[in-house]
């Protein structure tokens, strides 16, 4: 019960309102419609929106809504049941285009500054600049990864099973000729775990931690959690799991890479900013 309450309040409502203020815009619109009498135009719509918003905010009712929508979804998706955009737009229209010609805010002279003020307030409530999505960085990452993946695909080998740093694996199954991978995005994106009953063996997670640690620190003798991990053993384990193409960061010492490849009988080739080890 405590966990449900935490999901509905701390990880739910508080986090939902931290990044944007649209729920506040909705509540302001509903208040305006109520006080201005505009709600009488569509009473059923008004009361449904008001009550559903209230149910989403109050933790007890929010818990029931979250259970109804199933644990597949997080808190923010219960707001799908609230017609936020439609109701807020209704309120804005009632304010800017009042029904009566003799209403206090009728006339272009009053409406234009009001419209600009509302626009400024809306911009403060949210926008793409607050989404945290860096389009350029994402595009650059993708292009770099696609370049490396196309070089691997051009190697002429068939039925490749790739083990590589996360920044490459993230895009390896999105191109027209997808490669088989040792593990996919669900290794580091927990939400994707809900799409399948398959789970990775514990050893796979160790391989992931080792590879990410090598990518960040160039230390082949440890995994990311400070445990001693024999580099050659990790590679042997990966090969046992089916990997036949291994990509290592290009910043590693060439001799270190040769020492890793030798026990497996793999060849080493330079591929852009990486070393490619393959049979």
């Amino acid at each position, binding site marked *: 019960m405590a966990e449900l309450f935490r999901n509905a309040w701390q990880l739910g409502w508080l986090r*939902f309102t931290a*990044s*944007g203020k*649209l729920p506040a*815009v909705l509540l302001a619109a509903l208040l305006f419609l109520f006080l201005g009498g505009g709600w009488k*135009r*569509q*009473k*059923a*719509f008004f*009361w*449904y929106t008001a009550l*559903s918003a209230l149910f989403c905010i109050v933790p007890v009712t929010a818990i029931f809504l979250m259970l109804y*929508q*199933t644990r*597949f979804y997080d808190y*923010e*998706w219960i*707001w*799908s*049941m609230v*017609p*936020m*955009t*439609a109701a807020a*737009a209704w309120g*804005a*229209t009632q304010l*800017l*285009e009042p029904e009566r010609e003799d209403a206090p805010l009728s006339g272009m002279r009053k409406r234009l500054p009001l419209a600009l003020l509302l626009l400024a307030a*809306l911009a403060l409530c*949210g*926008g*793409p600049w607050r*989404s945290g*999505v860096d389009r350029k960085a*994402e*595009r650059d990452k*993708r292009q770099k990864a696609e370049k490396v993946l196309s070089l691997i695909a051009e190697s002429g080998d068939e039925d490749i099973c790739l083990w590589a740093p996360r920044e490459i694996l993230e895009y390896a*199954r*999105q*191109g*027209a*000729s*997808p490669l*088989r*991978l*040792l*593990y*996919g*995005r*669900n290794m580091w*994106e927990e*939400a*994707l775990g*809900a*799409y*399948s*009953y*398959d789970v990775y063996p514990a050893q796979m997670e160790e391989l992931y931690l080792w590879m990410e640690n090598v990518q960040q620190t160039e230390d082949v003798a440890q995994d990311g959690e400070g445990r001693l991990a024999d580099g050659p053993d990790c590679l042997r384990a990966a090969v046992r799991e089916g990997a036949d193409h291994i990509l290592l960061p290009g910043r590693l010492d060439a001799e270190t890479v040769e020492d890793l490849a030798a026990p497996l009988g793999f060849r080493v080739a330079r591929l852009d900013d990486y070393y490619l080890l393959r049979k």
Partner: protein
Amino acid sequence: MLIVLVLCLLAASWVTGSGILCILYGKKGREAFFCADALLTGWAAVVGAAETAHILSLFGHLSLRVCVLLFSGLMIFLVLAMAAAGAVLWRKGAMPKRERQEGSCDVRAAAFLVPIALILLQAAFFLDVGGAYLKGDMTLETVVSFLDTDGIYQVNPLTGAPYEAGIPSRLKILCLPTFYSILCRIFSLKPQEVVWRAIPCVTLACSCGAYYCVGKTLFPESRKRQICFLTAAALLVWAGSCAPGMDGFGVLYGGWRGVTVRNMALVPYLVSLCLRRKWKPVFLCIAAEACLAWTLYGAGVCVFVAAGLWLSRYVCDRLEARAEGGRQNG
């Protein structure tokens, strides 16, 4: 070819939807609907056709190639049948007179440019940013794996290895990855082009249609207020692009996702239907959601919204009737 795909989907949806509304309501009833109603009703029918082809292929262990043929056959039948039904039923009566609304044509046309410009900016935004936010979504990988294996859920889309324990049934029955794979095959487009560019355009068009219906329902007497409503809605979509889960974020960063189609097209359309007391197409919306997004055995957001609006309307009508009765007695 991208534009052809988008136009074909919209046209097929509109023709199918017009026929369905004529069948459900007859010619007289059809006049009570807007053009956008036909688009959205038809879109729900297209999703239904995709779902039928998907289920038959999934449980019949058919290849994607056969699934494409199934879907194409269903769509051709649906479009032709609904077009014929619509034409026959429409011919049975005289053309209706359209009521003139306030304001001159030129002013109304010019005012419409504002929301249209905002919507075109949204389209330009996601055409540029396509695929920038993929957290929690694996639609593209799924489509790619369907095309690569010429089958449905043959391998785990994230690794390319065969499934060991399988996937939840409630996920398996959702038709969107199959639908997108079919479109890739029919129009010979890359998966990224269909998933990240074409489908968000269709979602945006359906969303515009849905909010147009809401605007016309809330303000039937004034075109100026409808335009103001559409402009406000378009601006709120921009403002809502700040966080996942918000309407605007879905449209601008994930227009291909089932939850986005539900939130931005089905739910607002459902709201307008409930407010107009047009209950038959409501069931189409509920069924469409069950095909697009994970629901509690079919009971999703659309069921909740429809039930909530129905209950709200029922209570308001009863209270009004009681107040009216009290006034008459007084």
